[in-house]
């Protein structure tokens, strides 16, 4: 997995609470058996009109947000199904970091397993960022995982909390299966002791 250390990128706003994984990627795109190639399906029903052309009413479609790598979102982002296609679609689209006040549990874990950083910031800070992003085209943020800070265009910083183990895995791009298999002897001992 690619390590996540620092990221400087355009921030795209998504104005909706409880964005569920059916919105992030609708079910008709879950029939593929590949792990990549989902970028055109992200937010499909919101991004595109019925004739397949981009929906001008969907804020993220504005040219100023092209190439965004940071998604600004609202409460309970990623609720609903366990489909990992949701972080895959975001990742394939170029989103490496999400900023929101809260996430649904399964989606949150799925992001880390793909080397993405879903970061939690207070609702008031998120609201302030929504205002700033909309006020200035080309608005960028810099996320530094090691120091747990986000730097704004004016040089001011926001700090964030992150579980130390999750941080360690992201910074080093660690493969979790590999990490667990270091303890293979303990798994075997557990199976023997519990007769499973």
């Amino acid at each position: 997995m690619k390590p996540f250390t620092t990221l400087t990128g355009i921030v795209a706003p998504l104005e909706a609470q409880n964005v569920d994984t059916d919105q992030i990627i609708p079910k008709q795109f879950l029939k593929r058996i590949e792990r990549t190639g989902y970028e055109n399906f992200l937010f499909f029903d919101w991004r595109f009109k019925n004739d397949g052309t981009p929906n001008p009413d969907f804020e993220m479609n504005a040219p100023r947000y092209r190439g965004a790598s940071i998604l600004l979102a609202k409460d309970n982002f990623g609720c609903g199904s366990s489909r990992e296609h949701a972080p895959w679609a975001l990742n394939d689209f170029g989103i490496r970091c999400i900023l929101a006040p809260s996430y649904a549990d399964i989606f949150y874990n799925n992001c880390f397993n793909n080397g993405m950083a879903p970061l939690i910031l207070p609702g008031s800070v998120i609201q302030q960022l929504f205002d700033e992003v909309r006020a200035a085209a080309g608005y960028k943020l810099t996320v530094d995982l090691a120091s747990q800070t986000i730097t704004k265009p004016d040089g001011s910083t926001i700090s964030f909390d992150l579980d130390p183990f999750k941080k360690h895995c992201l910074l080093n791009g660690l493969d979790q299966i590999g990490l667990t298999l270091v303890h293979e002897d303990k798994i075997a001992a557990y199976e023997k002791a519990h007769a499973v």
Partner: protein
Amino acid sequence: MAKNIYEKIWDAHVVHSEPGKDTILYIDRHFVHEVTSPQAFEGLRLAGRKVRRPDLTFATMDHNIPTTDRSQPIADPMSKQQVETLENNCREFGVACFNMKDRRNGIVHVIGPELGLTVPGATIVCGDSHTSTHGAFGALAFGIGTSEVEHVLATQTLLQKESKTMEIRVTGKLPVGITAKDVILAIIGKIGTAGGTGYVIEYTGNVIRDLSMEGRMTVCNMTIEAGARAGLISPDEKTFEYLKDREYLRGGKPWEELVQQWKAWASDPGCRYDTVVELKAEDIEPQVTWGTSPGMVTGISSKTPVLAELSDENVRQSAAKALKYMGLKEGMPISGITINKMFLGSCTNGRIEDLRAAAKLVKGYKVHSKVELALVVPGSWQVKQQAEKEGLDKIFTAAGFEWREAGCSMCLAMNADVLNPGDRCASTSNRNFEGRQGKDGRTHLVSPAMAVAAAIKGHFVDIRDWKFN
């Protein structure tokens, strides 16, 4: 010290823990289906890894499969490829696979308990958020992503953090006509769709105890809709009675020994939870969702919200957006909402008891002339057989309902059972998200009885006033 059921199961499954790291937790059962597994098997192949415990891994196909004639090949080439990929992967890695022609086939959360694979005290995972269903048996069961599916296939463990615990206690007397579906919808309406985030929920109280195992599964199934990954109910005599003589429990340990072991998982008297929520059964009426999130729910005698009465800006915006998508006016009576489609089935309400309850209402009635499609889809092959043995299929078809083969069907509409834009559906499934049952389709979540009553009357009605034939 008195422990709750979650703490007991967690403690018994710790393989390894060290400060500052996630705990390695042993997984007793791993259910696999066609949609969230192909990339996991591919990952194993690329890394040259095996499935550590194929004997603890069970696969079924449910999401993509047609509910029409099974003797025909699957028409959609991508669905066909995904289903075939699962069969091939299971063959290559030595995993049992219940394919479409197998009498053990069905929705993963229906067949696990039905086959006796779901047992008290077990840790159970599946690449599907409704894995919480199995918690009805006092198992710690939750949905995982595909990377985690690969992790479990390779190691039979998961890296986990211990959750907080929430007790949801439902007490009092459940009024006649109020079902498990209404109870869980009312709970979600009370705590919200993120109310359970970070928690494992244990459902307690005399109302939960009085529910059948099918009803308990309905409650635990929708735990994820309240934001919690897992919902449990301590096992009791009903649990053991349901499991007795199930296929995968035959020929193993003596029954009495199993029951003694299972009993010990129940929460101890005086155990503690991080949060406690209480609900009075008397306050619950038949529930209907009006919006695009399961928390947007109200009673049948109520109305859609009046936007000016919602004080929170975010809540008001969400409600306005939902009413617009649903094509509903604010402040309109729920009983005034007309439907043109109905879906009875899913891992929430596709079990034999659900079909029996619905058939009881249907007897002697016809589907309303304005209702174009009323689908009844059993949750598994076994449920279908049992229903046919009892003649329930005849009751449904005589009334104009379609009787189909088992599968997930229109709950998520990955197969051909899809709503058209503008369709309005009374559905016994678990999610009313935008486009869930088809792009621009409108879903109202209800109990089986409420769904068939709406199909017969053409609009939502209060089943407490139903005239049974």
